[in-house]
């Protein structure tokens, strides 16, 4: 008796559900629009976009794979030492040594080529966009929701249009990585430029600078640290895309993890993951130190001169 009443109530309630009558074929519509119009119309444009990325990626990858292991290690360790000091140089050496020891050198170089390509294009696109956003509140207002969408859409979702437009392979994976990793660089470039003191920009104008000169002489140098933080963020996001990139045909360390997962091969998947972490540590430390480096050097120079140069001491006393 009670269940009968309940069923009747439920039927009445379901009567107002639109899905009881018909399912809206939104998926068909999207497919129709994307397949019949979007993809064929825009494919030439997207193919053209693909070309420079393919050139850079191929070039970088063949160079990295051609250079002997020892040379790569020496260059990387020297770069780390110059930019970040002895500690980071040691970490770099140990990490690279380990990456080769576990048999993932080739994969590491492939991933490195992809990351560097993606970040390079992010810089080429992202910094000008950030500058544009910093110069006009209207531009910034247009960019903000777009960047929000780029950052919040799960990366799996836009793998689909990317595959449709660009196919599968390394280059589409790099493009997905660029889309995913771009927003922080645009945001932080914008922020960095806007944070430059108004009086300094005013001084630039008062001393006859054009807007372009103000940008190059005052705003960009002073925003550099914030922009480098953006580059660092972009790099980290790009690394986090390596496994997802493997879903659409990217090689490298991401593919190791993906293959290991597919085969339920815990060990193989784990060393792939370890490789990504080691690469992330090296790149993170070096780029962070590059961002701080300029200021740190200056502080150091100021301090030593203040302590040691006699004329400075005399000047201070006077």
């Amino acid at each position: 008796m009670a269940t009968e009443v309940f069923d009747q109530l439920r039927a009445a309630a379901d009567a107002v559900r639109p899905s009881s009558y018909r399912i809206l074929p939104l998926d068909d519509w999207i497919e129709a629009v994307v397949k019949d119009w979007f993809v064929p119309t825009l494919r030439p444009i997207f193919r053209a976009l693909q070309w420079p990325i393919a050139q850079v990626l191929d070039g970088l990858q063949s160079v990295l794979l051609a250079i002997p292991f020892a040379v790569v290690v020496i260059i990387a360790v020297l770069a780390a030492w110059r930019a970040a000091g002895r500690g980071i140089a040691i970490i770099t050496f140990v990490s690279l040594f380990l990456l080769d020891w576990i048999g993932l050198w080739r994969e590491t170089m492939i991933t490195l080529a992809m990351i560097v390509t993606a970040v390079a294009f992010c810089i080429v696109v992202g910094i000008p966009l950030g500058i544009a956003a910093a110069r006009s509140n209207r531009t910034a207002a247009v960019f903000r929701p777009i960047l929000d969408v780029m950052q919040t859409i799960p990366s799996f979702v836009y793998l689909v249009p990317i595959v449709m437009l660009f196919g599968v392979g390394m280059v589409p994976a790099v493009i997905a990585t660029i889309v995913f990793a771009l927003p922080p660089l645009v945001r932080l470039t914008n922020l960095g430029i806007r944070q430059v003191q108004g009086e300094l920009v005013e001084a630039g104008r008062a001393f006859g600078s054009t807007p372009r000169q103000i940008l190059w002489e005052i705003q960009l140098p002073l925003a550099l640290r914030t922009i480098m933080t953006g580059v660092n963020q972009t790099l980290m996001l790009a690394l986090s895309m390596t496994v997802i990139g493997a879903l659409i045909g990217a090689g490298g360390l991401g593919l190791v993890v993906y293959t290991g997962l597919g085969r339920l091969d815990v060990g193989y998947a784990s060393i792939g993951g370890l490789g990504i972490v080691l690469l992330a540590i090296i790149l993170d430390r070096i780029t962070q130190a590059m961002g701080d480096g300029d200021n740190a050097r200056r502080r150091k120079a100021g301090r030593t001169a203040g302590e040691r140069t006699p004329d400075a001491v005399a000047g201070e006393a006077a």
Partner: protein
Amino acid sequence: MDGTRGDGHASAEVTSVPRRIEVRGLSKVFGADVAQALSLRRQGLSKSEIIERIGAVVAVDEVSFSVDAGEIFVVMGLSGSGKSTLVRCLNRLQEPTAGRIEIDGEDIVAATEERLRALRLEKITMVFQHFALLPHRTVAENVEYGLKMRGLAKAERRAKALKTLESVGLASWADRHPADLSGGMQQRVGLARALALDPEILLMDEPFSALDPLIRRDMQAELLELQRRYRTTIIFITHDLNEALTLGHQVAVMKDGRFAQVGRPADIVLNPADDYVAAFTRDIDRGRALPVRAAIRQPGSAGAGAVLPEGAVSIEGGQPLHEVFALASGPAPVVVVDAEGRVEGTISAADVTALLAGNPQQGRS
């Protein structure tokens, strides 16, 4: 320091001193409804009433003044009085809403962007309250900034920067960064950056307000010295009336976007135009602000142009009043003379004391 300035000065001596800056009815309104804000102001509403009513700020309100070549024109006012906006209109860092600005007969309001940049590099430079030095550049590179914008080669602008730094006593700090310098030294760099362009007009927006009192006094003396040497025309903004009276040939007291009074320092002190100005003058140091000649009771009593009386001591009339204390308290009569040594009048210790005490009877009208 350069030929053009010397020539300009020479011709100035032949004819009467030319008007360098001529400002007529200058207004600047921030906000959407500019026309309405100005018309409300004309109907007698106060600045704050207009802000409340339509949200527009009348920062500068129909200000007119003129500045002669080689003169220091000081605009004194409290924060929010519109003085910083006013000075920024003169080199169009702020776009004037209405009015005329002429510099050496050239209409500044109508100047193109390109012409403005040229003016800022050739004629009108600026010194900022918080120095506005570039922290990533060395002291010399900061001083070179305007020269670089002019397109000078590296070696040439470095030489000029070092020379200018020398004139402000900072040559040995050329390759340090601004952060290594004290506030007073940083502002000297700011001054050197402006002077490196050999400007004819220097806009100074509260340049010494961020400095300690002792340093401020040194900088004031140094500025007067530099001004005497280069005959630069200076528009100087300050919120400190003592500073205004010490530096200014003319002083304008600004309130709510308008000039409450414009005049020579002695006029401001002795004949304040209204209660607002009078309230400021109550606190000032008369010994420094007033010239000796303000204490003369009987002008020309010893006979204008006459020779000095026997046993008298003389003092130049333009000296600050406190210079005469020691002389006036001595037994000999004190004779005030002008720059050429002609007698202007005599003063007594009582005259000086009365003037210092602020007795209005004593003031010259």
